[in-house]
C-alpha cells in the first residue's frame, strides 16, 4: 500500500533565472542561469546528478523535442534525461519525475528543470498551436484568456455575483500581485498598478482585460532533489521536504459529461484533497502559511481559492476583496508576484512557485519575506483550460514540520 511522498524527498538546491523579455538569451542560457544558482545552493558537482527531467510546453518556439537540449545545455554526464510536457503544469510535472526517482530509491540525486523561451513568436500572448488533427476539426482552438474567461461567466451565474463585483474582485487580485512583484528583482513586471487602471484596461476576452492576464515570459527554474538523509550528509541543516505532490488530469467529464457547472476547476479540488491528506493538513485555511497558485488569469486565482478549500464556494471573491490573500493577509498568495508579475515561462512556472516557497521556508526571500515563520507552503500549477486540464499541487515544508 502506497504511503505517499511525505518527507521522503528533500530539496537540495533551487535556482531561478530572471523572468521576462530576455531578448538576448537562448533557452539553454536561461537554463544555465537557473542551474548555476541551484548547484551553488546544493553544493554538488554535475557528476553527482543521476537523472534529470525537463519540463517544456512549446517545442516549436524553443529547444525542440526530447531531453537532449537539457543534456547539452548543462553538459550532463550522459545520464537519463526525460522531457515532459503537461501544458502549463509541465514544471511541476518535471519536479514529479525527479522526486519520484529519488523516492523510488533508483536515484540519489535528481534534477528537474523547467524552461520556456516564449518571446520568439513575434507577438504577445501564447503561440497558437494545434491540439491534434481530430480536435482541430471539432474543438475550439481559441486563446488562453478566452478559455479562462468563461469561468467568470459561469461563476457569476452560479453564485449570483454581479459583473461589477466580480470585475472589482479580480482587479484586486492583479493589483495585489503587481504590488508583490514590485519587490521581486527577478520578476518580469515590477510596476505597481491601481484598481482604476486595471478596471479601465483594454478588453482581451470578456471580462478579462489586459491586467487580468499574466505576463508571457522567457525563463527557467531548477530544482535538485535528494533524500533527507543524503541532504544531511551533504551538510544541509534546514531541510525542506516534499509533503505532498499530486497531479489530477481531466478525463473528459467536465468537457463531455454532465454535472460540472463551468465555474470551478474539478481537477484542483481532487488534487487538493489528496495533497492535504498526504501532507496531513486538515484545515487548509488555518494551516497553510502561504500559497503560490496558477494565476494565469485573475479569475483563475480567485476560483482556485475555493478549489483549494481555503475560501467557501461562492465566497472567494469576498475573501479576495477583504485582503485575505494580500502579502500582509492571513494567507499571502503570490508573494513573489505570481504568474501575473513574476512572469509565465510555461515550463518553468511550476518550479518557480516551488522555488519561492522554498526561499520563504528558509527565510531567504529578502524584502518580500513572510514575517511569520512559514510551515506549509503550497504551490498549484494548472495546465490546459477550465474544461480540460492538468492540476498539479506541491506542498513543501520544513522537514520537522
Amino acid at each position, binding site marked *: 500500500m502506497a504511503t505517499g511522498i511525505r518527507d521522503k524527498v528533500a530539496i537540495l538546491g533551487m535556482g531561478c533565472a530572471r523572468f521576462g523579455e530576455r531578448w538576448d538569451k537562448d533557452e539553454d542560457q536561461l537554463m544555465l542561469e537557473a542551474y548555476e544558482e541551484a548547484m551553488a545552493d546544493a553544493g554538488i558537482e554535475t557528476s553527482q546528478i543521476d537523472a534529470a527531467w525537463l519540463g517544456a510546453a512549446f517545442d516549436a518556439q524553443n529547444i525542440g523535442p526530447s531531453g537532449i537540449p537539457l543534456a547539452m545545455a548543462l553538459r550532463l554526464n550522459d545520464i537519463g534525461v526525460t522531457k515532459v510536457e503537461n501544458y502549463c503544469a509541465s514544471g511541476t510535472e518535471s519536479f514529479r519525475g525527479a522526486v519520484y526517482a529519488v523516492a523510488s530509491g533508483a536515484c540519489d540525486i535528481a534534477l528537474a528543470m523547467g524552461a520556456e523561451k516564449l518571446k520568439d513568436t513575434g507577438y504577445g500572448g501564447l503561440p497558437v498551436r494545434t491540439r491534434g488533427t*481530430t480536435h482541430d476539426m471539432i474543438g475550439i482552438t*481559441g486563446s488562453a484568456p478566452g478559455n479562462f474567461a468563461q469561468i467568470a*461567466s459561469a461563476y457569476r451565474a452560479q453564485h449570483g455575483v454581479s459583473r461589477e463585483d466580480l470585475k472589482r474582485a479580480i482587479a484586486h487580485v492583479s493589483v495585489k500581485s503587481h504590488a508583490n512583484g514590485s519587490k521581486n528583482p527577478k520578476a518580469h513586471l515590477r510596476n505597481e498598478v491601481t484598481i482604476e487602471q486595471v478596471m479601465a484596461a483594454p478588453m*482581451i*476576452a470578456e471580462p478579462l482585460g489586459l491586467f487580468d492576464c499574466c505576463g508571457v515570459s522567457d525563463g527557467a527554474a531548477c530544482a535538485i532533489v535528494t533524500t533527507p538523509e543524503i541532504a544531511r550528509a551533504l551538510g544541509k541543516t534546514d531541510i525542506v521536504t516534499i509533503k505532498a505532490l499530486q497531479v489530477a488530469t481531466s478525463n473528459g467529464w467536465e468537457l463531455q459529461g*454532465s454535472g460540472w457547472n463551468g465555474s470551478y476547476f474539478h481537477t484542483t479540488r481532487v488534487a487538493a484533497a489528496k495533497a492535504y491528506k498526504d501532507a496531513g493538513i486538515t484545515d487548509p485555511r488555518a494551516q497553510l502559511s502561504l500559497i503560490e497558485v496558477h494565476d494565469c488569469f485573475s479569475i483563475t486565482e480567485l476560483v482556485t481559492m475555493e478549489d483549494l478549500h481555503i475560501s467557501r464556494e461562492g465566497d472567494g471573491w469576498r475573501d479576495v476583496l477583504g485582503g485575505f490573500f494580500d502579502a500582509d493577509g492571513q494567507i499571502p498568495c503570490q508573494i513573489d508576484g505570481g504568474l501575473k508579475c513574476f512572469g509565465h515561462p510555461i515550463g518553468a512556472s511550476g518550479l518557480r512557485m516551488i522555488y519561492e516557497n522554498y526561499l520563504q521556508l528558509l527565510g531567504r526571500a529578502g524584502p518580500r519575506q513572510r514575517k511569520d515563520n512559514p510551515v506549509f507552503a503550497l504551490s498549484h500549477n494548472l495546465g490546459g483550460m477550465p474544461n480540460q486540464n492538468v492540476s498539479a499541487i506541491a506542498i513543501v515544508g520544513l522537514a520537522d514540520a
Partner: protein
Amino acid sequence: MSDQAMNDTGILAYGAYVPITRLQRGAIHAANGWFAGGLRGLAKGEKAIANWDEDPITMAVEAARDCLDGFDRAAIEQVTLASTTLPYADRQNAGVVKEALNLPDAVGAMDVAGSQRAGTASLIALLKGAGERPALHLAAERTTPTPASEREMNAGDAASALLIGRGRPVARLLGTHSVTMDFVDHFREAGQSRDYDWEARWVRDEGFAAIMIPAIAEALKGFGRSGADITHFIAPIAVKGVPEMLAKKLGIAPEAIADTLKDRLGHAGAAQPTLMLADVLGRAKPGELVLVTSFGQGCDVLLFEVTEAIATLRPRLGVAGWLARRVESTNYMKYLFHRGLLCLDRGMRAEHDSKTALTALWRNRKAVLGLVGGRCTRTGTVQFPKTEVSVNPNDHAIRTQEDYPLAEVPASVMTFTADSLTYSPDPPNCYGNIEFVGGGRMMAEFTDFAPDELEVGKELRMMFRIKSLDENRHFRRYFWKAAPAF
C-alpha cells in the same frame, strides 16, 4: 382523393434560408458613390449577405433542414445542389450537404452548375425522374460581385430547398418547357468571381423579351393555359420593369407578378427562381397556378398547381420566416473583407495552419459534418463526440454507444466569452461550453450573435458553418456552431 391524385408528381415540401445580415444598399453607395455615382438609383433597401463562415453548401444545409421538417430523411433518394458559386470544383458539394443532413449513405447526389438556369434545369430533371422515394432539390448562391458594380447592388445570398416526389404534393407539376440558346448577356469564367456584363438595353430587348416571351407563350400553349390563368408569375429578374413587361406581353395580371425580394434580399442567382417559388408557396392557396421561369442561355418554364395538401403541411420558416430573422448592417468594409475584396492586416495569429488530415476527416465524418454524438445503450448517457469509453463517471462502459445525432437538438449556453485575442474574421471570437437538452456537451463557437447578447442559459440552435479556411491548400473545414435559438 383519387388514385390519380395520390400519384401526382410535384413539390412535397419547401424550405429556404436567408443569412441574418442585411447590408444596407445606402451604405454601399455611401462608400462607392464618389466613383460610381450612377448607382444612386439602386441605393435603396437592403441585401442579405452570408457571414464569412457561410457558403452555398452551408446555406443549402439550412434550407434543407427547413424543408425536411417533419419528413423522414432516411427516405430521400437523391440530393441535388444547384449553384454557380459552389466552393468545390472537384469534391461533390452535394455530398457535404448529405453528410451534414446525416442522410443514409445509400443516396444519390449531384451538383449542377454553369448557368443561371442551374436551379430550374435540375428541378425539371428531378420532377421528370420522380420515383417512389423523394429527391431533395437545393439551390444556393453566394456571389462576390465586383465592388461598385450594379451586380453588387442587386445580388443577395440565399438558398432554397424543395422536396420532390410523387404522392400528395403541395404543388402538382402541370408541365415544363425549355429553350436553350447561347445568348451571352454576361459570363464568368470558371474559378473567377467577376461577372462581365453586356449592355443592359440589349439584354432586355434581345434576351428577356425576345427569348423569354416566346418560350413562355409556347409553354402556356402546351400546358393548355393562358396568361390570365396564372396566379403567381415568378420572373426572377433583377432589372427594373422587366417582370412587368413580360407579364404584360403574356397577358398575366400585374398582381400575379411575384415579389422578386429585391428590396429585402436581393437576387440569389441560380437559386432565385426556386427561392421565389418557396416564398410563393409560403402563402399560396389550393388551386392557384404558379408559373416559374428562369433565364440563362435560354429559358426554363414550369407550371404548378397548388393543392389542398398545402394546408396540412406543417408551417416552416420559409423565406418570410428567415427574412424576419434580421440584423441590419451598414458595415460595407466588413462585407468587403469577408468576400476577400479588402486586404486587412490580420496579424500573426491568422497564420495558424488549418491543414486537415483527410484520413481523420473520413474516420470522423459523422461527428464533424453531421454532429453525430454517442448514446450509451447501457446508461443512456449522451456525449459528443462518440468515444469507445463512456464519459459517465459511474459507468465507463466500453463500446456501448450508438449514434446519436445532435444537430437538431436544442442547446443552451453554459459558459461564454468574447475573445478579442484569437484571430477571427468577425471579432470578437465568441465561444463557450454548451449543453444539449437531454444531455451532451461540447465547446462550441457562437455565430450570428452580437457579443452582448450572450448569457448563461441562452437557448441555442446548431448551424452548419465553415470552421476555418485552409488558405494554403484551398480547403475549407466545416463544422457546427451555435446560433441564438429562434
